[in-house]
């Protein structure tokens, strides 16, 4: 079942996102089958929060998640040289500056 699909199955599969601490983002850790979000949270707690730290859980139906396609991954690649966006591209100036 794929993300964004409107099949009956995709309505029953919830993606689970766990936040370990408030200093962390929510991360997709797996899925549960459930009739609704309330039940999905109950199952997610048991399956994904029974051992490791967790302060918050999100669940979302697969049918409600829009996603890019892996086949189109090239559209996410930079079309031009983006080295100017990285601090590492400015080492020369830093080296000269430090020498003074």
């Amino acid at each position, binding site marked *: *079942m*794929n993300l964004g699909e409107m099949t009956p199955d995709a309505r029953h599969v919830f993606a689970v996102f766990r936040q370990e601490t408030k200093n962390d983002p929510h991360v997709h850790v*797996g899925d549960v*089958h459930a*009739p609704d979000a309330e039940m999905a949270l109950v199952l997610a707690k048991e*399956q994904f929060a*029974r051992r490791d730290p967790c302060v918050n859980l999100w669940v979302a139906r697969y049918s409600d998640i829009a996603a890019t396609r*892996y086949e189109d991954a090239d559209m996410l690649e930079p079309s031009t040289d983006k080295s100017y966006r990285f601090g590492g591209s400015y080492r020369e100036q830093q080296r000269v500056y430090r020498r003074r």
Partner: protein
Amino acid sequence: MDGTDDPEKLAAFEARLAAGDRVEAAEWMPARYRVECLRLIQMHANSELMGALPEREWIPRAPTLSRKMALVAKVQDEIGHAQLLYRIAEDLGKPRPQMIEELMAGSSKFHNVFHYPAETWADVAVIQLFVDGAAMQTQGSLRSSSYAPYARVLKRICYEEDFHIRLGLDNFKTLAEGTPAQRAMLQDALNRWWQPLMHFFGPHDQASPHLELMMRWRIKVKTNDELRQQVLRQFVPVIQEYGMQVPDPGLRWDEARNQYAYTEPDWDEFKRVARGEGPKSRLRLELRNRYHAQHRWVREAVARWEMAA
């Protein structure tokens, strides 16, 4: 390859895998790649679900409350692994209820090692330390599987298996350092489990186009014989360190070949068990069927909940 796959797509797929890329569920894959991944993951899921049964029998009889709690946690982890695995298996094209039906009907396999009885508490120690230890070798190697959803699930599974092995070592050590009766019980468990452990990774690898394809596609990462040698290097020193006997008089380190030499286990027995004719095959499947029937009301309640929602 399969005849049904577009040769251009197949060539691009193989080039991607050769470059180290991985495959996601929604991406194009050769029909045979899909079938082989599904077969592997379904069998793994079945084995997690059935593998919980031998140890589950010992929950009411665990010797202390803390050991009972740890065993409950371990058994729950195994069921959790089955949930993770059936979830990704269904994305390869087989509905989850159908996989459960196939398991219960005996038409899809679960691992040979779970067709044997767990007769004493020492069996629990041996299962946790050595069966989980052997499973960890396969699963650890498959973390580099080309099928990305499987590789991701295996990260979580291996993390929890590590706890199971440490728990097993604690149980093993306690018995090995215990009374003569406890040591005798442990040795007896080792003697009975040695052959299933030698069977664990399956027969010797024969060079074949199938094996070559599985390795090239990274559905299989290490050969059966490589994995068997890995666990011998891991297990034999542990057994000896605690003064227990390795139950194979033919076992010795072969310096020239840099590996263990061992007595061949009974491979006919391996085949019988794989056909579902092991000592506990029928009983465990009956248990699985009985629990499934007992829990029908839960599935029905969930369905009614949904209609009400």
